[in-house]
């Protein structure tokens, strides 16, 4: 049966189908990343961007095609992640313009709107490259327009578009040499093909493996928990076996409501905070108890459950978020961390043996500071009552915030947020992969770190939030990642403030730019100096190959350690990231080099990092070698040479 028109209803369905199909294919797209590094995110980024659109229109009350299209544009603009996400948002922008104020589109109008989208996507990129999603979009939409001039069945036109897209995708390695070298087609292009495929599968009635992504919140979990308990109580399960069966049945029925929860992996759900993890832990132990048949009666289950629920409902165990700097000699960071861990939690001790930044949650900040004074000089004390922040987590009323009790004895600079300069006119926001790196950047002048869930790259919205939260009229933004630069530029365009994006592709570039930041000169002058500074440092990265790859004449297996320099794979090692790092450094150092800085990541122990540091000092006795804990999740080492 021919489909003659695209109505608002059909657009919503099409987008939903596109979203679902891309979502389940996103890992395939991720693996097409030219560099087999673990942060190949194209599939994930495109999927999340599309998801933002889908969520917006599913809950929309609008009846109007143009209105829906505009909602898609708004949501993808804000929800865009990564380069590919930004391109998608620009595509939808053009597509919506093509729709204009029409109530429905015929085949030709739809094809033309697609082409307008393809043009807008191309127009939004500073230097469009052929052999990417831009090429695939162009070929698909041009073919669609040609076809629609004599064909009025939307199905036929879309099928034609998909055929053209698939063929164009196949040709991308011919257009873009790096794809050919890596033996892959373009990831973004593949994502776009899946998007079209999804729509056709919907039309043809094929399955779309749609998983309803209901967001799991702590509140829901606790309710589900309570539900389990009351069911068990109601059934009066005297036999543990029965309780087990009931639990299993309930979990099964929850799957539909709560998404695919694999008990007990509640911890992996993004958005769970520390309190939620108490509930999760307790949930695990109770299920464990049930399974181990250690319970003689339901009361035991009740107690654990009560503890979990009340942990969530009552005030936080440790109330005061406490931060300060210690300046001393030979500070033993690990020992300090261990000691503080006995008086609070969320302990973080970051820095060097002569200057450390301490952060923890505790109920007795006075004793903590007292202890710190025994280690060196304490300064920049900041104490926050977290009850105020916790308000938003609880439904019930919280006790009013208690006044800060601690008064540091020596220095005047204990005011909250004492870095804040009144009438500050330039603020700095930056992205950091991990908390330790974030602390380093903060100490070097960054006012706000760009947030977002831990494993994901930030969306336009995340960057916008960071920009808004800084009390300054002008903002400098350091994306510190090539994939975040376009998102930052998008956020800059959308902001009311004067925002300048310094296109840092890596952390070392970002730090180099930050060193050249001067709060005393204009935004323009800073832009010049900081942008120039980007080129003054070389970045090397050591990571584990996420898939097999053939790079020039380097055969890489999944799990090999690879060293990247200047966006090229330079070295490879089967076993040792330290050896890979040393080899990489050899490629980076030249006669002008003076300073090697090594940031070690989450997967590397301090001992292993120190070994690399010592080896490097030995290899280059004339250079200064510095080692810092970066704690970054994806790269064993980030190395800068200047």
């Amino acid at each position: 049966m021919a489909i003659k028109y695209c109505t608002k209803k059909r657009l919503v369905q099409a987008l939903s189908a596109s979203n679902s199909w891309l979502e389940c294919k996103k890992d395939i797209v991720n693996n097409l990343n030219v560099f087999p590094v673990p942060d190949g995110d194209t599939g994930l980024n495109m999927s999340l961007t599309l998801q933002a659109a889908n969520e917006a229109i599913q809950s929309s009350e609008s009846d109007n095609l143009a209105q829906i299209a505009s909602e898609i544009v708004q949501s993808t603009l804000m929800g865009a992640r990564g380069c590919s996400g930004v391109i998608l948002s620009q595509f939808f922008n053009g597509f919506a313009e093509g729709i204009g104020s029409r109530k429905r589109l015929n085949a030709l109008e739809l094809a033309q709107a697609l082409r307008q989208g393809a043009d807008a996507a191309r127009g939004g990129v500073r230097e469009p490259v052929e052999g990417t999603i831009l090429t695939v979009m162009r070929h698909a939409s041009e073919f669609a327009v040609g076809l629609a001039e004599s064909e009025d069945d939307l199905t036929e036109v879309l099928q034609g578009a998909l055929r053209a897209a698939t063929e164009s995708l196949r040709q991308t390695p011919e257009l873009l040499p790096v794809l050919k070298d890596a033996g892959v087609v373009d990831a973004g292009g593949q994502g776009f093909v899946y998007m079209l495929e999804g729509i056709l599968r919907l039309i043809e009635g094929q399955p779309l493996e749609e998983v309803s992504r209901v967001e799991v919140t702590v509140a829901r979990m606790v309710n589900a928990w309570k539900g389990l308990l009351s069911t068990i109580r109601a059934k009066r399960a005297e036999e543990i076996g029965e309780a087990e069966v009931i639990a299993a049945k309930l979990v099964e029925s929850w799957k539909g409501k709560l998404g695919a929860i694999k008990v007990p992996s509640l911890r992996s759900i993004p958005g769970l905070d520390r309190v939620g993890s108490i509930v999760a832990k307790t949930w695990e132990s109770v299920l464990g108890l049930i399974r181990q048949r250690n319970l003689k009666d339901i009361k035991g289950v009740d107690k654990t459950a009560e503890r979990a629920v009340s942990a969530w409902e009552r005030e936080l165990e440790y109330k005061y978020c406490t931060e300060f700097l210690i300046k001393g000699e030979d500070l033993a960071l690990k020992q300090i961390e261990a000691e503080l861990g006995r008086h609070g939690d969320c302990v973080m001790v970051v820095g060097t043996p002569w200057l450390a930044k301490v952060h923890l949650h505790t109920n007795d900040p006075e004793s903590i500071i007292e202890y710190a004074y025994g280690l060196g000089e304490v300064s920049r004390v900041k104490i926050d009552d977290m009850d105020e922040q916790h308000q938003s987590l609880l439904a019930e009323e919280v006790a009013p915030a208690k006044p800060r009790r601690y008064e540091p004895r020596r220095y005047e600079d204990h005011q909250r947020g004492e870095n804040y300069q009144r009438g500050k006119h330039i603020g700095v926001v930056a992205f950091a992969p991990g908390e330790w790196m974030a602390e380093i950047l903060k100490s070097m002048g960054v006012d706000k770190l760009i947030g977002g869930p831990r494993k994901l790259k930030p969306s336009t919205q995340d960057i916008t939030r960071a920009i808004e939260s800084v009390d300054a009229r002008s903002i400098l933004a350091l994306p510190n990642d090539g994939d975040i630069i376009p998102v930052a530029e998008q956020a800059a365009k959308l902001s009311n403030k004067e925002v300048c994006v310094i296109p840092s592709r890596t952390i070392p570039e970002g730090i180099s730019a930050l060193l050249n930041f001067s709060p005393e000169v204009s935004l323009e002058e800073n832009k010049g100096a900081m942008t120039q500074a980007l080129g003054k440092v070389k970045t090397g990265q050591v990571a584990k190959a996420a898939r097999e790859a053939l790079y020039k004449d380097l055969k890489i297996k999944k799990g090999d350690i690879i060293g990247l320099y200047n966006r090229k794979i330079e070295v490879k090692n089967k076993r040792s990231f330290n050896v890979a790092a040393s080899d990489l450094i050899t490629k980076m150092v030249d006669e002008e080099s003076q300073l090697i800085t090594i940031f070690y990541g989450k997967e590397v122990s301090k001992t292993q990092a120190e070994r690399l540091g010592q080896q490097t000092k030995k290899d280059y006795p004339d250079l200064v070698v510095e080692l810092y804990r970066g704690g970054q999740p994806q790269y064993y080492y980030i190395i800068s040479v200047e």
Partner: protein
Amino acid sequence: MAKVAIVTGSNHGIPQSLIEEYGIRMIPFFISLGDETFRDAVDITPKEFLEKVKRSKLFPKTAALPMGELAEAYREAAKEGKSVASIHMSSGLSLPTYENAIKAKKTVPEADVEIIDSRLTWFSIGLVVLESARVAKEGKSKDEVVRVAKDAISRTISIFGLPDLEYLHRGGRIGRAKSLLGSLMKVIPIVAVRPEEGIITPVGRGRNIRQVNQRMIETIKADMERVGAKKIKCMIGDVGDNPEATRDLKEVLERNIDCGEIIEGIARVEIVHVGPGGWGIGYYLLE
């Protein structure tokens, strides 16, 4: 025969030979460490004082220029039939010194004293003092000397690399450079004193001596462009323990900027606020 006496404190970086050549009346600050107090460069050499500071766990201190000594200097000048140009470090950095000069002037009504707030510090005051002294030696009038001094102030700037910013912080003079404190990476903060500000302002940070010096050059070039200057005169030096930094600065300067004169200066009382490892430049923009 000079008609004008140049009176100043000991914060100018001018090497002893030039002090004597121009007959500059230098009044030493009082510097102290723990319970020992010295007259700057009189009771103890800068080198010895720096050693003491480095070995001690305490931070050194200074006091304002004593009013009595200033009055004495003015009285002597008056006896010799000379006027006085009393040039002092920025009131933004040491208000009591400036105020003491004013009070001293009041107690010596027979002297013809002009008190000049340089709004500068270390080598940049040095350049201003030397310009004024040169003109005074030529026998010019007080008005002429003061005119030259004020003109020099408007075209002189200083920049310093301070490996340990705590000294400036403890001395209470860190001004707007407070934002440079507390870096978790090993960096050298770079600060400036500009005559229109009269206090310490932040410039940025460098990871090593070379980066700091290059930043200095960039700043100097920007200033030169701003006023259309083609050359500079300058004074450079370090606190006494970082000749490598001074050497590198000289090299980078000679390679990049048209410097008429590069005077090599020293540190006296500056040790207290600049701290070990510190170095810098005062530069005078010429048309």
